[in-house]
């Protein structure tokens, strides 16, 4: 990674009464694979459209390689987009679709033909030159859309949920494919998704967005294992959020009082004894014990077996609901049973601390 490619400075946008973006500040490094992760309506697509130039922000600046491009139309930015619905031109065949950008730039015909051929090889669609978009499968359309954008050698490629319409198996293949392309070409990718798995698999960095704000920025490991907020912990890791009071602060661990039980958790900055704390414990890290004296007392309320995983729903004495997951079946756990919920200290991460996600 060598230097900054794109910078967003306090971008604000509203549609009528609703504030869609409430001040987005972010910088994207050259060659990085950055993912905007968030639920629908969090403003990630709007951010992307502003970067592409398809939408103008009310406030703020977009800087591309240090130059202010906020007021430039989309055709005058070295940025290309892979649209969610592909937006292939239905009246042009694959070759003409991919070559569109070069034709607009009036490149010589021989050059266009050569580069289109290279692109088709790159996305493994050789022999499909004369097909019309209507004759392609979803995955093939996707490849054409990617080739059509990449042929212009953009400085930044924006991808708006490009795999959203594909089935799971194809999506996995395309994830690997996209990552391969990005590494090979060294082009900066800005990827949008609401699928946390996709984000974790592909990204160098993930930006979690929520209600028009940046919730947390970090590597997939940071986001997954060290969520800063309850929202991130829940959205990315399907974590349980358990409230307690800090009792004792150690070097690496803290002691937390929950339901009169003493539980251990990871230490975090800015904690004080006697203060309330929220702990995020991912489902797979929450263990259900049928014996023993340690752990939180709970009652099994439900149990279901899905995709090789056993999900056990628990209710604490305080009424809080937790879910624990594990591989394989366990016949000893039945609804109505009194159990204890246990976790390892490093699996309980304090969230929603004083330090809010950096803007």
């Amino acid at each position, binding site marked *: 990674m060598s230097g900054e490619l794109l910078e967003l400075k306090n971008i604000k946008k509203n549609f009528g009464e609703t504030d869609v973006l409430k001040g987005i500040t972010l910088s994207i490094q050259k060659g990085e694979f950055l993912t905007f992760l968030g639920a629908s309506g969090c403003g990630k697509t709007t951010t992307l459209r502003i970067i592409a130039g398809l939408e103008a922000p009310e406030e703020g600046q977009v800087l591309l390689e240090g130059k202010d491009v906020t007021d430039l139309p989309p*055709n005058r930015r070295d940025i290309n*987009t892979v649209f969610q619905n592909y937006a292939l031109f239905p009246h042009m065949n694959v070759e003409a679709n991919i070559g569109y950008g070069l034709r607009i730039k009036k490149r010589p015909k021989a050059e266009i033909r050569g580069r289109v051929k290279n692109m088709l090889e790159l996305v493994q669609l050789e022999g499909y030159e004369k097909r019309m978009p209507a004759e392609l499968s979803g995955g093939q359309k996707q490849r054409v859309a990617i080739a059509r954008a990449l042929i*212009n050698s953009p400085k930044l490629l924006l991808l708006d949920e490009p795999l959203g319409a594909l089935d799971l198996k194809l999506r996995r293949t395309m994830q690997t494919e996209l990552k391969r392309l990005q590494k090979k070409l060294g082009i900066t990718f800005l990827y949008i998704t609401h699928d946390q798995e996709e984000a974790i698999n592909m990204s160098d960095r993930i930006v979690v967005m929520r209600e028009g704000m940046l919730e947390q920025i970090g590597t997939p490991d940071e986001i997954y294992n060290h969520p800063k907020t309850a929202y991130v912990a829940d959205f990315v890791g399907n974590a349980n959020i358990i409230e307690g009071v800090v009792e004792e602060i150690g070097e690496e661990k803290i002691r937390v009082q929950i339901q009169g039980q003493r539980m251990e958790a990871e230490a975090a900055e800015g904690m004080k004894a006697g203060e309330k704390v929220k702990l995020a414990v991912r489902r797979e890290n929450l263990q259900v014990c049928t014996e023993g004296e340690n752990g939180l007392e709970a009652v099994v309320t439900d149990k279901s077996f899905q995709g090789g995983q056993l999900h056990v729903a628990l209710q604490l004495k305080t009424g809080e609901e937790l879910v624990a997951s594990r591989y394989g079946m366990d016949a000893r756990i039945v609804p109505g049973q009194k159990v204890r919920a246990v976790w390892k200290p490093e699996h309980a991460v304090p969230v929603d601390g004083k330090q809010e996600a950096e803007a």
Partner: protein
Amino acid sequence: MKKKKSFGLFLTVLPLYFFTLCFVLGPLLYMIALSFATRGDGSSVVWNFTLDNYRKIGEPVYLQSFVQSFQLAFTSTGLIILLGYPFGYYMAKLSPKWKKRMMLLIMVPFWTSSLIRMYGWIIILQAKGVLNGILMKLGILEEPLKILYSYPAVVIGMIYALLPFLVLAVYSSAEKMDWSLLEAARDLGANGIQAFFTVTFKLTLPGLLTGIILTFIPSMGLFFIADILGGNKIVLVGSVIQDQLTRGSNWPFAAALAVVLMVLTSLMILVYRKVTHVKDLEGLF
């Protein structure tokens, strides 16, 4: 089961076949046959095969009416495209609420007979009419314009009568367009004009061609507009045919004129389709 179903389907389309055979194909064949017959006494017809009717069309008077008809049709259609294409295009971009309102505004005139509406234009265009009144009040004109009973008046009437068809045809094809394609074009480096001509125009072309056909063909035949607004200065094929049917009582010759007109307009459509490579004419063909 399947046989029953297809028989049911056959029954439902049967009236359509019956109608087409009796009222389209039948009269058409009769007309073609008639064009080779000879005029008898009064309005009667003598059924002997002759090409005289077609030879007669070569006479300058009749040839002139064809030329005038085509000229008028081209002029009006051209102007209708210039006015109607942007109209239909922008209408498709309106919010659903305004689309409905515009649609209503386009439909309202159809509630009145087009003949009566043409007489309305006389009131507007005549020397002491509404248009001249306004222009003179505003000081734009000193002398009243003599528009009525002139070529421009006929063109205005044609545009007025046929514009809605082109607007609606363009609208229906622009409405179906995915506007994100325009964004994609802009994103790929096209400026507004390039994006319009490489994407929007191409995708609305079927609608435009349907509109052109829907305006060009009728404009060849709407002779009553020329009669009402053009005085007797412009004689269209339609008027000649009508004249031959009524006052002239020469049915075979009228039939020959109609056949030639039909062949010429069909040729025009073929040429359009060849030139533009559009196969799907919004359900017209």
